Every structure is written in structure tokens, then in C-alpha cells.
């Protein structure tokens, strides 16, 4: 019934890296390959996610280069995917399809990205412009929309309709920093208080600096195989029981209410059907919290909380590690970091470890069912993935 199984994972610490991107990716890919206990020549295909290389370091067509660096033989089918911040999940979708249909037996899926001013040599204002490249040039970039501000528009409307407050948003940041403090791979290891969040400077109202994920460098990788093949790898496989990719209209003005999460709602419904579960069955979730408001919107769109209830639920601690619905035990994009092409598969790395019970201090108890939620562009693309531990 599973569509594919994860048999190996690896990721770098997220932070600042000046090394070439192939070297950065190797630090995620080689551990993932080792974790699966396979040799390089067993890998049939390599799906690589990278978003900004063309604009930041004049590097496109990175897949064959990275493949050569990590020693994948030329017979390996290698390609790059770019779908903004959902890049890693789109690469994963294609990997799942490839092993599910038997087109390939073993697929390495991963991503690497350098977004920090130090990693790219590009200062913040210009990186803000490049980050905004997911927006429609004429109808979104021109009036001045940025990545933060599209989620800000949705969140402002959500606050207006449901009474969500800036304090609710701050509580998301506080919770994710708390989780991140237990994750040695997280970019931020320090806890934050609600006061610190509310005292930080505005980026795009209602979001303040501490409502926003950082610029990050990093890499992540997973090895996937078909459900049947998984047993033969001698490792503890975690099943991917569903993956759904849905789009929203562009530009954002044509996206429907409730605040532009229609594509997430469709993806969630579809993935729950694939996995034969409902939102009540989910034990742990990694959510695309690029901004605190994005987590609030997602929790409702995924059906984990009623519309309008995610803010209060967060304040009540229901999404903390010890709450009824632990969200972003990794620290999320907010505290773990968001090297955009690596984010999708990094969520899968975290959930694989959670479902194997290997997450240490931040382990969610009895985690059997998990979902990952990854958003790309100006709320244009969503991918929701369901994962399950074998009984």
C-alpha cells in the first residue's frame, strides 16, 4: 500500500557554508547512502533540488556536477528540480513515482542551497529581491510584494477574520525555537520569549524579525526504494504512504479565501485518501513555517485544527512536543533554518527519524503517522506527504 519507502537519510547542520555546493551536498548525500547500506552504483536515479544557483552563483544544471562529485556513475539518471521552496518535495514526488512504477529501483533525492549573505556573497536587500523571484514579475514583484509580505497579507486577513493576534504568532516562534534548541542541526539553538519576538523589528507587518525564518545554507538527502524492495536493505524502512502536489492560481489576487490555502486543503484531502488516514491519526507533522503566520494557516488547512483555532491552540501549548499535536519538532524552518532547495527533503529526514524513534530529546512519543507540508512560491504550490512507521 505504501508508495515508496525511505531507507536512508542524511543532512548537514543548517547554517552558513562558503564551500562549493557539491561539497555541501556530499555532506548530506554520503551519510544518506551509508545509512541505506548501499553502494553508489546501486543508485539508478538522482533527483536534485536547487532554486537560486542561477541567480546567486551563476550555476545552473547542477545535477550532473553534483552527481560526479559524490561518485554517481554516468549511467545514473540525474536531473535538477526547481519549484521555489517546494523544490525538495517536488523532487521527492518524482522519486516516489519512479520507484512506485518500477522505472527505477533506488533513487537518491535531495537538495542543497546557499542563501546566506556569507554563503552567496550577496547582501540582504539583493537576496530579498532574489528570494522574491518566485513572485509574478508584473503583478506581484512590481507593486513591491516580497516573500514575507505574501504570507503577511494572508495572515493579516486571518487576524481580521478569526481574531488571531500577534501574540499567537509569537507563540509559534517561541515553540519552534524551543524545539530547535534540542536539535543540534538547527541554525538557532537559543530559546526565545514572546517578549523578544514582539520586540524585534518589523519585516512585513504583522511579521517581525523573529517571526521569519533565517537565510540558511545547507543540504539534505534521502534514499528511497519501492515498498517491496525496502526489506532487502537490512535497515528499518519508513513508508511514504501518500504524496500530493497541488497548485494555486497566480497571481495571489486570484487565489481564493480562506487566506489562500486552497491548494493545501486539496493536497491534504488527497494525501489523507492516499494514506487512508485522517487528520486525527497524525502523530507528528513538519510544517512549512517560513513565517509564523504560515504555520497557523497550514495547521488549519491541513485539518489539524479548526479554522481560526490554530492561534489559540499554539498559545495553549497543544502544538508543543508534549502537546496533543506536536508540530515542527525539528524547530521548523523558523529555528532549524531554510536552505530552500534542501527544505523539502530535510522535513522527510526529521520525520523518518521521528518514526524510527531516533529523535532523542525531541522525540515525539509513539509517533506512527506523520505528515510533511511544504509550500512553494507565493502560496502557489503545496506538497503534502504522509509517512508511516511499519508495525
Amino acid at each position, binding site marked *: 500500500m505504501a508508495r515508496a519507502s525511505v531507507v536512508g537519510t542524511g543532512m548537514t547542520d543548517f547554517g552558513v557554508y562558503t564551500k562549493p555546493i557539491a561539497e555541501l551536498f556530499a555532506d548530506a548525500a554520503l551519510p544518506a547512502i551509508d545509512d541505506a547500506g548501499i553502494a553508489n552504483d546501486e543508485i539508478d536515479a538522482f533527483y536534485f533540488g536547487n532554486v537560486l544557483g542561477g541567480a546567486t552563483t551563476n550555476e545552473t544544471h547542477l545535477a550532473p556536477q553534483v552527481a560526479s562529485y559524490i561518485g554517481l556513475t554516468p549511467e545514473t539518471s540525474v536531473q535538477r528540480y526547481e519549484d521555489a521552496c517546494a523544490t525538495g518535495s517536488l523532487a521527492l514526488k518524482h522519486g516516489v513515482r519512479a520507484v512506485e512504477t518500477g522505472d527505477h529501483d533506488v533513487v537518491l533525492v535531495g537538495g542543497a542551497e546557499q542563501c546566506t549573505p556569507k554563503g552567496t556573497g550577496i547582501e540582504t536587500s539583493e537576496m530579498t529581491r532574489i528570494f522574491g523571484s518566485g513572485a509574478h514579475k508584473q503583478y506581484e514583484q512590481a507593486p513591491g510584494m516580497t516573500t514575507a509580505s505574501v504570507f503577511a497579507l494572508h495572515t493579516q*486577513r486571518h487576524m481580521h477574520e478569526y481574531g488571531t493576534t500577534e501574540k499567537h504568532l509569537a507563540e509559534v516562534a517561541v515553540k519552534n525555537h524551543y524545539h530547535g534548541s534540542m536539535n543540534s542541526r538547527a541554525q538557532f539553538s537559543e530559546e526565545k520569549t514572546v517578549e523578544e519576538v514582539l520586540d524585534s523589528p518589523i519585516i512585513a507587518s504583522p511579521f517581525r524579525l523573529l517571526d521569519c525564518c533565517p537565510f540558511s545554507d545547507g543540504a539534505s538527502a534521502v534514499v528511497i526504494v519501492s515498498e517491496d524492495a525496502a526489506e532487502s536493505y537490512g535497515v528499518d524502512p519508513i513508508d511514504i504512504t501518500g504524496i500530493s502536489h497541488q497548485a494555486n492560481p497566480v497571481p495571489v489576487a486570484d487565489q481564493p479565501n480562506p487566506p489562500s490555502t486552497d491548494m493545501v486543503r486539496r493536497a491534504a484531502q488527497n494525501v489523507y485518501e492516499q494514506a487512508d488516514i485522517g487528520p486525527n491519526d497524525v502523530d507528528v507533522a513538519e510544517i512549512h513555517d517560513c513565517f509564523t503566520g504560515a504555520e497557523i494557516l497550514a495547521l488549519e488547512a491541513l485539518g489539524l485544527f479548526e479554522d481560526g483555532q490554530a492561534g489559540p491552540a499554539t498559545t495553549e501549548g497543544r502544538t508543543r512536543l508534549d502537546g496533543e499535536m506536536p508540530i515542527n519538532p525539528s524547530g521548523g524552518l523558523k529555528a532549524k533554518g531554510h536552505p530552500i532547495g534542501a527544505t523539502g527533503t530535510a522535513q522527510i529526514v526529521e520525520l523518518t527519524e521521528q518514526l524510527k524513534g531516533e529523535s532523542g530529546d525531541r522525540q515525539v512519543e509513539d509517533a506512527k503517522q506523520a505528515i510533511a507540508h511544504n509550500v512553494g512560491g507565493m502560496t502557489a504550490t503545496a506538497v503534502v506527504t504522509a509517512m508511516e512507521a511499519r508495525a
Partner: protein
Amino acid sequence: MSKEFTREDVNDEQSTEALAEMDRLTHEKWEAALEDGSLVGLECEECEYVTATPNAACVHCGDRSVSPVRLPKQGSVYSKTTIEVAPEAQGSGYQIALVDVGDARVLGRITDGERVDIDDEVELSGPYEYDDDLAPLFEPI
């Protein structure tokens, strides 16, 4: 940029029939209208969805029977944000807003220095230019 869609095509006196006879509404024509103080959108004959920016087919149902319509110059704010960190050429401390103009919604820039809130009434006050593109500029009424 040559403007085949001229002032004569889009002024306020232009008949609805003349608008409907335009070929596909392009970005160039949309910008020319904006320069002349008009916001032109598209209405779908099939599902009646109205969009505020050019498309080759209905963004809601996919039907190709979309006809240019003039949108009202006044509208109300659906959502807004004040942006402090932006690409350098955009400045900082400005607002953008999703504005409901008749049956359509459009993303616009708010006049520098002004502040709008959700449900505020605003009026199209001209084009805002960034990187050779024009966007609708609104000011509070």
C-alpha cells in the same frame, strides 16, 4: 515599448463594446490602460469569474471566452501589509494591499506615506513603476 493600445482605446468614454472587441488583453494593453488611469480586467463568459490582470483563458475554469472589462476605480481593502525589508529599489516602509475592485481583486501599491487598513475604501491614483513594470497605485479616500 510601443503601445498599440492607445489612449483612445481606454479612456473613460470608451464603450464597453469597444473594450470587448479588443484582441487578447496583453500586459502591454493593461499597462497602457493603467497609464491612462484605467484598470482593465477580464470576465469569463462561462463561469463569470472576473480577474484584474491579463490571461489567455479563465484562471478559474479554463474557458477561453474571456472579455476585457473596465474595473471600478474605487475599491475596498481585502488585506494589507507594511513592508520594511524589500529589494533596494522598492524602498521601505511602504504598504501593499489586495484591493477588491468590483468583482475582481488586484494587488496594488499604496501611495507612499499613506496607511490603509482592511475594509478601508481606496481609489486608483495612477501607475506605480518598478523595474520598467507598472502596477496599480491606490490612495485612501
